[in-house]
């Protein structure tokens, strides 16, 4: 993971960061892994996601409670799309093999809803796609996994 840049901030913001955002770090790691299919890639984008969150904490004072997972997914998806040219060595796990045939937008929709538990409207909002596109991506992802020969 990259060496972090530190943001000295008010203690109440530190509490928001620790209580609402850090508690979802594993979920972000799973999303980042689904997007990159790489442990190195997952670590990289978790680091980038949390750097972006830490740098903008005052923005999330009113929405962190109850909305942190959506904010994290939105941020992870954004930083991934900004830096997706980065190359990472791919994983060989069953999860990586099962997700590999899917486009990243389909993986993002799948993880946001079936793993992280967002509702469809929230998932569409944080992934910045239309409700219809979200359903199409989700349907494609589920259909592909259900017909996959890879055993999870």
């Amino acid at each position, binding site marked *: 993971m990259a060496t972090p840049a530190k943001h*000295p901030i008010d203690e109440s913001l530190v509490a928001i960061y620790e209580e609402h955002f850090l508690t979802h770090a594993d979920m972000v790691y*799973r999303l980042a*892994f689904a997007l990159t299919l790489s442990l190195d890639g997952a670590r990289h984008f978790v680091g980038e996601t949390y750097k972006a969150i830490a740098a903008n*904490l005052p923005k999330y004072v009113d929405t962190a409670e109850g909305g942190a997972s959506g904010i994290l997914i939105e941020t992870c998806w954004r930083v991934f799309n900004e830096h997706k040219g980065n190359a990472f060595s791919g994983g060989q796990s069953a999860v990586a093999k099962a997700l590999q045939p899917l486009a990243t937008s389909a993986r993002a929709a799948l993880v946001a809803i079936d793993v992280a538990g967002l509702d469809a409207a929230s998932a569409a909002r944080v992934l910045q796609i239309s409700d219809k596109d979200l359903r199409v991506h989700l349907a494609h992802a589920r259909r592909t*996994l259900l017909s996959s020969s890879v055993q999870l």
Partner: protein
Amino acid sequence: MAFSPTELNNADLLYGYLDEYLDGELTPDILAKMESLLQTPEFVGLADRFQSLRGKLQLAMQSYYLKEEELAVLSALVVPQGDKQKAEATSIEVLSRSNTHSVYLRAGVLILLLAAISGSIWKFGRTKEQRFKPLEYLGYEAQAMDEDAQERLNLPSHDAKEVRQYLETYPGLEFKAQVLRSVPADWQVEGATVIDYEVAKVAAVLYERGKGKSKEKFFYFSFAGGLSDLPAAEAGNMRGLIYQTYTSNELNFVAWQPVAGVVAILVGRHSAPDLADILLTSRAPKN
């Protein structure tokens, strides 16, 4: 203009709304359409296969988690302002004295280095224990057992004595696995298993009542530890039974300490007081 599900083709509508279908969150018009599609030969059994897939995906994803040192790096991304000022003041003080105290400074650095190495050894030595997250892991385990209990149980059995014997003689368990002494009349034991998370072993017993769609389940997990290992929660007290409760989207957790060094957690879709009542009725050993 608002999106209408009818804009989707049949397959996209069906696959795209499977989660809401299973969770009972569809509006009557989409539900009717889904049910009609699910009866066509092409899609028969799809809802069950999706439910199983979703559980397996969630469980598989559980194996991806950050290590303590990686979490520490994320935590260090923010530092309170007061700490930073303190750090700067210390740093200025050290610099102002550096010319006259260089020998002491080097000794200090050496001591700090040794302390850091000792700290790392202590920290990494504890990492294994800290990785076990009972509520998260057992919530997923309960969901997986809920979906396919026979697949997850090492000992499917309706015989409480056999279940107790299985857990008592299970090799390598470093705690006294818990079995409810006598569940209410309409409940029966369905079997048991021991889950090995590498960092901890967990004994699990499944109880059920009812049949078909009205079937209800609860899970009784036990593992080595203390209630203080769980996140802080307000304690409940039901006729002398002291317990802590937690909740997830679908499940409630009632945690208590039946004997020293063992935590037991009852997990189910019932309310926490109902679960605590089952515990009491089952005359499990009291703390």
